[in-house]
């Protein structure tokens, strides 16, 4: 299985009150529990079930994912830039593992 790897695109610089778009993607199989492998055996369900975004420690966006979300979940959302800080992204796997990523943004 390929390694689970988060990726994200946050503008490095933004002006005050500018609405920026943040794009994220995590490489994950998102097994819905309905697919079968080559031998006809059911692949057990294993998905990313939660995506959480914090800015300077404050929670700003949460998404709950269900098996109907595609392999390698892509999520894009807006954010209104006010101050310089760090975004913390966190994906939670069905098996309890958490994958994290941080991105800095300078607001002038």
């Amino acid at each position, binding site marked *: 299985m390929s390694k689970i790897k988060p990726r994200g695109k946050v503008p490095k610089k933004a002006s005050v*009150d500018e*609405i920026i778009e943040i794009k994220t993607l995590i490489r994950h199989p998102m097994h*819905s529990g*309905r*697919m*079968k492998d080559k031998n006809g055996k059911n692949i057990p369900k294993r998905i990313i079930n939660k995506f959480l975004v914090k*800015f300077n420690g*404050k*929670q*700003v*966006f*949460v*998404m*709950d*994912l*269900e*098996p*109907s*979300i*595609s*392999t390698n*979940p*892509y*999520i*894009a*959302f*807006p*954010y*209104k830039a*006010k101050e310089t800080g760090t975004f913390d992204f966190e994906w939670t796997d069905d098996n309890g593992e958490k994958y994290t990523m941080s991105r800095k943004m300078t607001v002038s």
Partner: protein
Amino acid sequence: MKRQKMIMISRRDVMYLFGGVASTALFSNYALANPNLALKRIKEISKNNVEESDLFLDVPEIAENGNQVKVSFDIDSPMTNEDFVKTVYLLADGNPAPNVAKFSFSTDMGACSATTRMRLSKTQNVYLLAEYNNGKFAMTKSKVKVTIGGCGG
């Protein structure tokens, strides 16, 4: 001269024929009226207090591959502490499970929109349900034709 064989249709046969057509129509109607899980879920979430509205839900009209269908939405809201969209639900009525995703927004975001990719197992309706901070609900739906289904099997 060649004698042609006439097929005689009696009145009784005609009645049988019509009866047959009528019952087929009736039964197919029953078959179509299977419970719509997505609508049921929407009623559950909104406690039957939902209005159809023209929220902007962007899905392709025809999806060639049901494994990766891009979905995005944009809800017109000032996103201030007094007036903002709290939660947005994405549902589909033809998938094995109606729930697709739940987005929890905050006022820090400045706008209420998001983009993701979803699986669609067959041609179906995609629903968007928005919950406002004043407890109101609004929904919209859009039909997507799917050429190749995306739920395995």
